[in-house]
């Protein structure tokens, strides 16, 4: 009797549980369908919309910090070497000969770029994470002055002009250059530059300064009227992008010339060669408008050097060889006589040595057509590349001693600075700053991320398209449906923890799949990244915080009135006249905080003439203002264009009732995410 009762109760319980489960299942499916407006959607986890907490993301959690060297500077007498350690907020002074550390000082805010004054008494530091420039007195090795500049200053240069001393600061996050006067630090002007300025150079006479942008933008002037931004369409997507070399007058910050570098991007350094009247910039020649899968043909990207004269004439020459590439050129150093240039390949762990005499001779005899095509001829590098010096993992910044006999290399992912004898081209010493972080999976993952050896002939690394894990601002051609079709905007990798699936079609459920064997076969054309390294890579990617579009001084402050109005618009459930906004068309439904994505595919009317589907993955909006262009094919170059030129009849949020005031307010809010 007892057994029978137990069975009956159990059966009843099972039926009840099944009923509850079924009911729950159907309720949840209905709930999701009701909220998304998608009648075909099946069961999805509650965590798509609920239970998310930014503090639980990998990028919000504490992580190990490493004394990775960034900017370098050598004192005018050649006796001291200064090293910026952005990850541990320190600047180190070392003996340039023995490489022994002499002094350390704390400099808050991610000290990244360094510049010395002419006397060697003051060291200026670009503090990337606090948007400021700090001045160190080198007698006391203490910070004595500081000035907030633009967003994310990364490089700076000192010069003396007839109007006084000047610092030129590249603000990578705000796309401008701060021209500062000294004693005390004060901003003279803030001219705009290309996108993400990263390199600065000045002429010794104080008459010229140049700033090099890291990212390229469509060169609209070349596209003519058909590519005009006021005209709705897609023509601009097929224009080659160009980075910008901005030529300034350092005294007052006047813009003298903006020189486009066609199809060039990822320039992270710049040098002026007084002896030749050249400005040199390392670059990545990117070919995003031809199928990116054609790696074997060398179509994707290659490394080069831009040679610009004072009149703005530019010749791009290759640094790669026909079957061997030297990815991610970063640091650049040129000796005082203008005889040699050194270029650090951060992806291939090599310093390329360029004989500038031989390069000049080649340029002298080349006609205009040959110069124009030079960057495509990878056999050309043998004319002027005289040596390749192997280094440790991820060489980035370079500095030369005043006599040019020693080259210092920040070997970033090994926490070391290497000294190279430039006569013998051999490594003669190492400044060991840390243990390299081998025990830290995030550090190991960063090594994978920056390693070009995972692609065919070492053509590129993950970083080549995702500098600092972010975007390069380009849409790439995937040849799934023909050349020139299916352009896909490059999405940021920052702030992506807990935001699967990945890819614009939402087909990759995890980063392991996204970066896995298929990716290796299709894009990298090599063996897949080994599983252990892949796990490290995923740890690294998940550790990347969202991009920061706001100025450091504005963080953690209340929203501005405009941003607050924009916030109310973002979370609006009714129009001003009381008409309810359908749930599935409210901003907050798909871009649900705190991640600002529900991680589902949604059709918002953005299907283009070359797309195969209506539905695209909902991207997160963290740092969205810094990740232009927008939409899956990058057709919208500004946030405004999402709701003007490319507005989709209220499918991508109900925007038809917005005034221009409200649109501006919304964008001010989006800038705060």
């Amino acid at each position, binding site marked *: 009797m007892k057994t029978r009762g137990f069975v009956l109760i159990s059966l009843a319980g099972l039926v009840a549980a099944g009923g509850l489960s079924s009911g729950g299942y159907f309720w949840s499916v209905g709930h999701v369908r009701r909220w998304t407006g998608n009648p075909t959607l099946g069961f999805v986890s509650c965590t798509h919309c609920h239970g998310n907490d930014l503090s639980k993301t990998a990028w919000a959690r504490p992580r190990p910090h490493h004394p990775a060297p960034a900017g370098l500077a050598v004192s005018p007498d050649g006796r001291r070497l200064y090293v910026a350690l952005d990850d541990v907020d320190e600047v180190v002074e070392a003996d340039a000969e023995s490489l022994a550390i002499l002094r350390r000082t704390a400099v808050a805010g991610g000290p990244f770029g360094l510049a010395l004054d002419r006397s060697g008494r003051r060291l200026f530091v670009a503090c990337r994470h606090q948007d400021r420039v700090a001045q160190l007195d080198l007698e006391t090795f203490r910070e004595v002055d500081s000035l907030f500049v633009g967003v994310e200053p990364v490089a700076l240069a000192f010069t003396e002009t007839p109007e006084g001393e000047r610092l030129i600061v590249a603000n990578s996050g705000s796309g401008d250059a701060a021209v500062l006067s000294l004693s005390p630090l004060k901003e003279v002007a803030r001219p705009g530059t290309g996108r993400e300025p990263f390199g600065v150079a000045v002429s010794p006479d104080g008459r010229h300064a140049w700033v090099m942008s890291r990212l390229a933008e469509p060169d609209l002037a070349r596209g003519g009227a058909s590519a005009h931004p006021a005209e709705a369409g897609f023509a601009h997507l097929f224009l080659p992008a160009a980075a910008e070399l901005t030529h300034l007058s350092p005294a007052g910050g006047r813009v003298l010339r903006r020189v486009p570098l066609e199809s060039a991007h990822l320039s992270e350094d710049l040098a002026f060669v007084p002896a030749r009247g050249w400005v040199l910039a390392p670059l990545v020649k990117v070919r995003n408008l031809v199928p990116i899968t054609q790696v074997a043909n060398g179509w994707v990207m290659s490394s080069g050097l831009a040679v610009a004269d004072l009149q703005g004439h530019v010749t791009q020459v290759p640094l790669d060889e026909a079957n061997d590439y030297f990815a991610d050129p970063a640091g650049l150093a040129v000796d005082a006589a203008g005889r040699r240039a050194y270029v650090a390949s951060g992806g291939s762990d090599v310093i390329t040595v360029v004989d500038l005499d031989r390069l000049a001779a080649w340029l002298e005899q080349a006609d205009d057509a040959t110069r124009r095509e030079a960057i495509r001829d990878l056999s050309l590098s043998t004319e002027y590349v005289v040596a390749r010096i192997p280094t440790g993992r991820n060489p980035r910044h370079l500095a030369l001693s005043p006599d040019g006999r020693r080259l210092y290399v920040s070997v970033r992912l090994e926490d070391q600075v290497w000294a190279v004898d430039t006569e013998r081209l051999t490594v003669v010493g190492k400044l060991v700053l840390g243990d390299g972080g081998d025990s830290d999976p995030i550090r190991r993952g960063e090594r994978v991320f920056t390693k070009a050896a995972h692609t065919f002939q070492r053509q590129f690394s993950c970083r080549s398209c995702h500098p600092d894990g972010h975007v390069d601002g380009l849409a790439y051609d995937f040849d799934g449906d023909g050349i020139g079709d299916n352009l896909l905007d490059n999405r940021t990798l920052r702030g992506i923890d807990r935001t699967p699936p990945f890819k614009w079609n939402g087909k990759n459920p995890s980063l392991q799949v996204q970066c896995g064997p298929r990716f290796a076969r299709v894009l990298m054309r090599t063996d897949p990244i080994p599983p252990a390294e892949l796990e490290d890579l995923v740890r690294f990617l998940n550790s990347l915080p969202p991009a920061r579009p706001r100025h450091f001084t504005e963080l953690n402050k209340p929203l501005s009135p405009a941003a607050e109005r924009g916030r109310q618009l973002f979370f609006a459930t009714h129009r001003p006249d009381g008409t309810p906004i359908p749930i599935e068309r409210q901003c907050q439904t798909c871009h649900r905080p705190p991640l600002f994505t529900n991680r589902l595919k949604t059709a918002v009317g953005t299907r283009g003439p070359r797309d195969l589907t209506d539905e695209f993955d909902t991207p997160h909006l963290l740092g969205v203002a810094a990740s232009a262009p927008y939409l899956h094919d990058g057709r919208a170059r500004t946030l*405004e264009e999402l709701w003007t030129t490319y507005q989709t009849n209220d499918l991508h949020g109900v925007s038809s009732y917005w005034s*221009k005031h409200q649109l501006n307010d919304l964008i001010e809010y989006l800038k705060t995410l």
Partner: protein
Amino acid sequence: MKPRDLSPWLTVALAVTTLQAAETTPAAFKDIPFPVIERFENFGKAEGIPTEKVHAVYKTTDGRLWLGTWNGLCVRREDGRFHRYGPEDGLSHKMVLQIVEDPQTGDLWIATMRGLTRLSGGRFTVYTQTNSGLPNNVVYGVDVREGRVWVATAAGAGSFNPKTGEWKIYDHNNTVMHEPWCYAIKATPDKVFIGVWGGGIIEHDPRRGTFKEYRDPDRDFHYDLVPDDGPINDITSWLSWEDGVLWQCTYFGFARYEGRGWKTWVEEKTPLLSNFTQFVWPHRRVAWIGMDRGVSVTDGETWVNYEVGPKGEGLRTLYRPGQPPEVQTMPTALANCFVLGIYVDDEEAWFATSNGLSRGVFAPYPRPATVARARP
């Protein structure tokens, strides 16, 4: 004679020459407290200006002369000919209405009939109502102060902070502006003045976020019933500000505001050449007023008008306080009597007209012209 014996004579000769140089102002203009144009040099299609209608003329701090025309932006080359930039070069629209320079960066900001354009280092960047926070594509006026860009558009005024990318709109929804049709804007060290077509003048204090409206107190469109009581009319066709003095152009007269009180002029009762005032360029507290019948120049007391006579001759009329007008015939005339834009510095004056460009060559006068500046 030994060379050293020459020195006293050379000294005397130099002194005489210097004295003569200082006294080169023609006697006829000695009591005119600002430079007087002795002749006009005219430029048109023969010099490469692409169209007869020139809306704006502006000389940048590097000395280059820029034109805004009905058919593109032009810059004067060293050989004296004009080079045109159009939409095919990146300009937002061929019809250019105003040009200003950011004195710090040297960037040109260009108001056009379809958007705002920045020309910086030879590169054009376009801001429209669809790709940016620009209030409206019809940009009548633009000004720059301390890096911040101000625009007057057909749907309100706006400001753009290139450092932050933030746009703000000022119109009838959030200010005391009567209507949003803004024709002119001028940023001063602490205020921004907005000329509203039909709404008088709006004074905006950006630091406090306040707005103050100046309207014609008599509210009569055709007559200035009570002189000097406020803006002469609510139809502000242009305005400008310099050295504490605000100048207002309307189609019904001209007005000045010095912070204490208003002064108004109409053609019926004052030397003002025409009530249809289109543009004003203040220079050293002297107003150079462009209108449909020529140019009036005044410091508020003395006037000099430049007209095109019935036979196409240049006419200059001097109005000295308390004296009868003196009409003089000039060797050359303005390219056209309808003056749409003006640029004046200590060296010369330029006039954008509806049929070409004119350069006003000053009669010799003691430079710098500090007389006018010293006046109240």
